[in-house]
């Protein structure tokens, strides 16, 4: 065939496959689901092959695309996540009320992300950005909650309309929609840069789920269909990182705000963003600790991790941006893997509530391992990819002397041990609930993506330079200093990191622990219900559950903490009240009341006109 593969062909191909998936699912559900598996893989291969043609522009009808270094990087992450997750779709077809619509929207969401990453102008970016929003917005209510979808849309709309304001503001100021061009120009004009930074920044923060826009994450991630939660958390959220990257780095915010008050090495505007990041680390961590629902817990952990990403991007030095990129990548892999493990558990047991699960390590050992690797990476423990990124971020924070932020980040890291351990122990360790005696292993097809994701997490934990060299090239491509390497070492400003060495040390430590474990006498295995108290048997497994009131002391500590969702609810309540008042006062069925308002309005207008 004479068609050369380009971004246009990929987008069109995905759109066609979305329609194809819809039609095929109508005919046969499984066939349709396989389309959603094949399409991302083909796209992944195609985008991978486009590595050499970075910098080329493509056009598709009226849309223009440009393959940039960072666009390629983000697209690869996204496609990887989609490709892996889509294996699960096959198993979920029977559970859906609208399977055909699900498959179509799933691929449309993928198209949206790719289009947004590769768009050359802002109009394209916005169109695809909104495509992500509405395709996922229709998928979320297929899960447990309709409200979640509305909450998701409300925040997304806030973000994307803020972005639209920024786009048109910039167009009005510079007469162009071209992303690169406009952002370069904006850097020379502090006001325009500020507007762009705030508006597009809000869009990014909303997508990332940074405080105070984090509320949609637990609701949407927690209630979306199990197969879509990994997409949301591992994939779509990262589009927010893309938006923040645009305004922080592609538009060199350090140059644009050079005249502003500088604070800890960054401008005050950037510092405010960093502070939001710090707050969301703390909030995300604290909230994650108290969740009972497995999926909500990971969702809150995503909030915390979004905080790291935005801090890294807003600090705009080589190490921090590199760290943020690495973190985007690592967290995408880890959270997708974690959510997939949840999905696998949910597929076999039908629940994601931790208090109803337990002891699944005996039934689903491989799932347990995948989850373990994922949470180790999320918590930033070597030798996983998550450790590398966190190390880079901490390095940078300390360089800049950001004590408060660094404290928050450390708090988040320690907190993450608490919350990742809880599901681990509650779901996989402990005793098996009697309901789940007959649970089988996760199906083979589900294992494939989980193993791929875990494998990559470990691989890039040991050899992070594979990714970091790409990141370094991205940094030089947007005109900033790139990361420095020395063999397998990553050079920081006050120290360097050799991941391979760390792995070796960790490997030795692990061996010693294993030996001790093997030599130690085995404990006796006890069934959950094999107990009695006051000479009575107990029949409620929940009360005996390992994770029952797991962190009760902690929870008591912050019981009275302010609840952000209350603020939004209060705003909406006010809106509703005003609406009710308007309806009551102005839209009366009594002519004299309306005449009264008409006369008042006329007097006001006549008076206003004569002023």
């Amino acid at each position, binding site marked *: 065939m004479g068609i050369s593969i380009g971004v246009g062909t990929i987008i069109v191909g995905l759109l066609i496959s979305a329609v194809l998936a819809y039609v095929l699912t109508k005919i046969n559900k499984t066939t349709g689901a396989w389309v959603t598996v094949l399409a991302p893989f083909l796209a992944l291969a195609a985008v991978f092959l486009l590595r050499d043609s970075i910098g080329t522009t493509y056009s598709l009808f009226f849309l223009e695309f440009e393959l940039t270094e960072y666009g390629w990087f983000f697209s690869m992450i996204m496609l990887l996540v989609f490709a892996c997750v889509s294996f699960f779709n096959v198993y979920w077809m029977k559970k859906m009320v609208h399977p055909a619509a699900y498959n179509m929207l799933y691929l449309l969401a993928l198209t949206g992300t790719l289009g947004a990453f590769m768009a050359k102008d802002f109009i394209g970016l916005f169109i695809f950005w909104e495509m992500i929003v509405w395709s996922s917005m229709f998928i979320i209510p297929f899960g447990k909650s309709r409200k979640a979808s509305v909450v998701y849309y409300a925040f997304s709309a806030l973000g994307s309309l803020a972005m639209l304001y920024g786009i048109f503001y910039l167009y*009005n100021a510079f007469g162009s929609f071209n992303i690169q061009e406009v952002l370069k120009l904006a850097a020379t004009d502090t006001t325009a840069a500020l507007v762009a930074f705030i508006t597009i920044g809000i869009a990014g923060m909303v997508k990332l789920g940074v405080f105070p826009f984090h509320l949609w994450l637990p609701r949407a991630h927690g209630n979306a269909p199990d197969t879509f939660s990994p997409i949301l958390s591992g994939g779509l959220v990262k589009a927010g990182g893309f938006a923040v990257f645009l305004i922080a780095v592609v538009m060199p915010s350090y140059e644009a705000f050079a005249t502003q008050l500088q604070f800890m090495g960054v401008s005050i505007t950037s510092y405010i963003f960093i502070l939001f990041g710090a707050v969301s680390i703390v909030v995300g961590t604290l909230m994650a600790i108290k969740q009972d629902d497995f999926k909500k817990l990971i969702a809150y952990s995503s909030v915390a991790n979004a905080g790291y990403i935005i801090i890294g991007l807003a600090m705009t030095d080589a190490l921090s941006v590199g760290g943020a990129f690495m973190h985007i990548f690592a967290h995408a892999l880890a959270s997708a893997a974690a959510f997939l493990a949840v999905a696998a558990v949910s597929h076999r047991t039908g629940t994601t509530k931790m208090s109803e699960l337990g002891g699944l390590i005996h039934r689903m050992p491989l799932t347990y391992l995948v989850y373990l690797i994922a949470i180790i990476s999320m918590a930033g423990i070597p030798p996983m990819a998550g450790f590398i990124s966190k190390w880079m971020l901490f390095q940078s924070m300390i360089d800049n002397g950001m004590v408060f932020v660094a404290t928050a980040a450390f708090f988040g890291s320690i907190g993450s041990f608490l919350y990742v351990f809880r599901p681990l122990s509650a779901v996989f360790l402990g005793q098996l609930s009697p309901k789940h005696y007959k649970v089988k292993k996760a199906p083979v097809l589900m294992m494939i993506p989980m193993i791929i994701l875990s494998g990559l997490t470990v691989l890039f934990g040991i050899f992070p330079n594979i990714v970091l060299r790409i990141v370094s090239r991205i940094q030089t491509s947007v005109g900033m200093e790139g990361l420095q390497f020395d063999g397998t070492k990553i050079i920081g400003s006050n120290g360097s990191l050799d991941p391979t060495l760390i792995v070796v040390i960790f490997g030795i430590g692990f061996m010693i622990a294993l030996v001790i474990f093997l030599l130690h006498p085995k404990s006796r295995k006890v069934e959950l219900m094999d107990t009695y108290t006051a000479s009575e048997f107990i029949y409620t497994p929940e009360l005996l559950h390992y994770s029952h009131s797991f962190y009760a002391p902690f929870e008591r500590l912050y019981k009275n903490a302010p609840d952000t969702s209350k603020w939004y609810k209060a705003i909406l309540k006010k809106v509703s009240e005003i609406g009710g008042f308007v309806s009551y006062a102005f839209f009366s069925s009594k002519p004299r009341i309306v005449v009264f308002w008409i006369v008042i309005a006329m007097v006001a207008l006549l008076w206003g006109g004569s002023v």
Partner: protein
Amino acid sequence: MNPALLIAAPLLAAFIAVIFKKIDKVVLGVVAVGNIAYSIVMAVLFTGATQIAIGGFAPPFGISLVLDSYSLIGILLVNVAFGLILLMGTKLVGRYGIVLAVSLAALNGIVLTGDLFNLFVFIEVAAISAYIMTTMNKQLKHTFNYLILGTLASGLLLFGIAVLYNMFGSLNIIDIASKLAISGVSAGAMVLPIVFIFAGLSVEAKLIPFGGWVRGVLKKSNSLVGPLLVTGYAAAILLVFGRLTSTIFIMSDGLKIALTVVAVATLVLAEFTAFSKKNLREVLLFSSIAQSGLVVALFLNGLTVAAILVLVNNVVSKLVLFALSAKIADDTGTDKISELKGVFTKYRVLGVGFTIAAMSLIGLPMFFGFVAKAQAVMSLFESGNLWLPAVILLVSVIEGIYIIRILTTLWNSGKEGQVPSKDAQKEYKLNGFVKVSIVALVIGVLIVAAGILPITNIKEFLSSDFLSFITRSMGGV
């Protein structure tokens, strides 16, 4: 091509139908189709803006109809909307065929006429047909309210027109505009007539606080009257607004601000009200009030192209949304959103049409609504206005929330906290939904097409001389 035929034909139809009662529906159908066809032909053969004199007396002496690209858009919009509404609600026409024909004539007259007093007459004809039509909804008390307010409004309008006649000795809009330009009448002298005309039109255009009648009259409306009042009538009146603001509304700064405040307050408050409502038709009603406010605000700022695009988008999408909602309400006996969970699971085509219209309404890209909203925001920026775009976009968030709330509820039957399943599905029965579905789907396809095509050359489109084209064609004033 004489546009007077668009007015004469429905009138003739009404007069004939009163003699031969049995054929009124046939006549009405023929006229509706004929008007659509004729307006399309006129659009195709359109060569340039002209004033067509009635009775052979050249303007400003006789009454004249203005045929320019602006009124062309208007008649296309009004006639097509009317035809589609009629198609979807044929069964409801009953004995009201004559009233509908007269209202069609009046709407065309409102859009076309270039004479202020003639405008008043047609507004009255339209209003009286509307009063009679709204009695279909069996809310007579509210109809009475509407009648009182509508009559007061047209009285105010007439007062403004009389003052203008005294000042300029003419009733022709373009003649007054040119006399205004020549005589250099100060903006202060224009305050009184402008405020009275504005107030008179606002009652029909449903601006807050003028349009207080609308909730009672339309919240229980059937799928014929409601869509007609919300789309056709609103479009015609708002187009008049546009014509007047761009010709004879010479406003002092204070008055311009005051009028803009009314329009923007309508936009914001009506969206808030729509947000607080729980019934489909009420939500849509307040949403269209808000859109009227937006359109008027854009007109007042001289952004005619943007205003027209927003208006067209609102008319087209509200047409589908309101007609389908009323249809659902007629057949299921309720239009409470929470009681209609998952109604689209069974009627998917209907649902797709509804969804596309709704998404166009909130202005998501790939739909026509985005083009309209983008144009509005963009041209506001160009005119140096930075706060109104922010208001529009913030209000869009509220609008999006309630529309998405409707969509997710109507598509998914599951209880909150549970995955939807087919067993929990409530059974709905809609009669004769096929026709409605097809109309909705066709409009949906058009919305998507119109949403994709102009973006092809969005830059040219946005910077095109469409605006100057319109002002030029307004008789060169």
